[in-house]
């Protein structure tokens, strides 16, 4: 999934394409991401390998592995 700068997305699921990454999925849940959560992409860095998202009052940076867990 390619995320675009400034776009808002709604999270359908976490970890749909992720294999053997329970810890990563758990951490994303810990950080407040959950199905139904809307988030906005604030920045894309390193050709989209790192993205900065905002949801509620939180700003979070995610790497490629974590991005791959987000189903929108």
């Amino acid at each position, binding site marked *: 999934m390619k995320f675009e700068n400034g776009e808002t997305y709604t999270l359908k699921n976490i970890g749909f394409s992720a294999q053997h990454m329970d810890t990563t999925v758990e951490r994303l849940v*810990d950080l407040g991401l*959950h199905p139904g959560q809307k988030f906005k992409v604030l920045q894309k860095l390193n050709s989209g390998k*790192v993205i900065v998202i905002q949801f509620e*009052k939180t700003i*979070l*940076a995610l790497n490629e592995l*974590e991005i791959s867990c987000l189903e929108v």
Partner: protein
Amino acid sequence: MSRSLNIAVVGAPNSGKTTLYNWLTGSKYKTVNYPGATVEFAVGSLNPALIEKFQLNSNKQIQFFDTPGIYSLNPKSADEEVTYNLVVGQQQHPIDFVLLVVDETQLNRQLLIAEQLQKSGIPFQIIFMMDDLASKEGLLIQRDQLVQSYGQKNVLVFDGLFGAGLEEVLRFTESLESQKYQIQEIGFDKKSLDQLQKQAQKKYRDFVKMERAPSQDSPLERTVRIDQIVLHPVWGLFLFFTVMTLLFASVYWMATPFMDWIDAGVSAFSDVVKNNVAGLAGQFLSDGIIAAIGGVIIFIPQIFILFLGIGLLENSGYLARIATLVDRPLSKIGLGGRAFVPLLSGFACAVPAIMATRNIQSKKQKMLAQFIIPFLTCSARLPVYGLIIGFLFAGENNLLSGFVLAVLYFVAILISAIISGIFSRLVQNTERPMLSMDLPYYRRPQFKIIFKQSVDKSKSFLKRAGPVIFILAIVLWFATQFPRPENADQLTSAEITEQSYAGQLGQKIQPLFEPMGLDWRAGFGVISSFAAREVFVSSLSLVFNIEGEEDAQIEGLIKAMKSATFQSGSHQGEPIFTVASSIGILIFFMLALQCLSTYAILKQESGGHKLALLQLVFSNVFAYALAVAVVQGLRLIGIA
């Protein structure tokens, strides 16, 4: 006698735990603005001044435990395990109660810990922090209903800046009794975690409302605006390199006038002592003790400025952005953004930096970070760099000197990166590193607090280095003055030193240091620095018999270095300290692990001698080989 009431202060990173802990205990622990600042728990008793001020029960012993930040009771890294083991595992200390510190602007995710604590049967009380920020964000929090949903009666709001609400927190903790709790449930699988997250989200929706639009100076809006530049793929990196260059170069530029004053002051004091205390005792005090101590305190301005700079970056919230910016570049050498903060701390001191690697979840990343941190330019190297740069430029060009110092920092970074890159390819691991970096709101650095903390850290540097240097100064002075020749009165200081124990030993090891372009005296300085790097300066002062009658101590040493020549061997009569040999010294000190504390912490954090020994042997062999190669290479192209 009954045991003390043990209260753990728990919460997510940046929620304000350490701030509350400092207010309760009167401690001065550093509060910073990035995740992973606390990697070990701290224990402190209730501040006696508060007992008196609020007339609390003085018979009750209360201990508070400041814990590393956690996002949930499912630990993912070594620092989170510290909190988990304390609160859930009840290891080392029986905890009676948990104060759960929550940032009101982050309740959407910080209530998960409350759900887990409740489900585990761990007694806790929510402490609301940062209500001013929540108000600016337009949030209305129905605190009474929220705490009631967890069976709590008290609504405790605490202001970390001014301490409002402290009395209520104190009265509440005073009312608690020592009673070890029984854990009802531990370990939360994904299904259970999802369920708890849903409950937390429902409570968030029920009890937290957007009352109005965020105010004009909303911290979130301001942060997003600043991040447009700070996290920009081009401008962000440009800003990063500019900030780092300024930080490292200003360590030299800004410190120079202060260092000159200290140098002149120490020299004047040494002269007074020498003129008033006759004979060997006067020499011992002035050339041994005062010179050695002066050789360390002169570098306090540089160390203070370094701590101040890092403190400002930490406190502003900028560090987490840098970690985000460099995540991808660092991943090329087997590291990630989470390794950045430990690496940066390595520029102050390797010991806390290696401890800070607990924040890194990936074992491979953690090991690599622990291995390369000792290569980074810690504050103990500054005295050596300061001396050699001072020798090369003789204080004539501060701008160039500052630039050279920045270059030394960057070369150390580059070499560390290459080593990490090579080692990361040798270590097989399928683990994929996480970033998931919380980006806190920017805030104006609390300069007064950072200044005070920098003073404390500089004092701590002196306290740590002082005794070692004092003892070594005595040993070194005796080694350079004894055995006393019978005709000592007719000999020069240099001739006495040459016949001394240090002279005899030094001449035996001279063949080892000759390829580096050094004679036995400089080699003796290098060997003595294995006790502490800073000792290099004072041991050189001793073997070169700096008396400081005409010049300031360091100035005098530099003057002696300029005129020093080989006293024997194939290079007899040739200058020792040349451009080539000075660069050789810089390279050796840049790479060699010469610190016992670093070895000990490497052993502790990596779980054995293996990594620490590998670092010790590899870094010293590599440092020596590279220094020799560069010195010989420079000589080949005509640079003496």
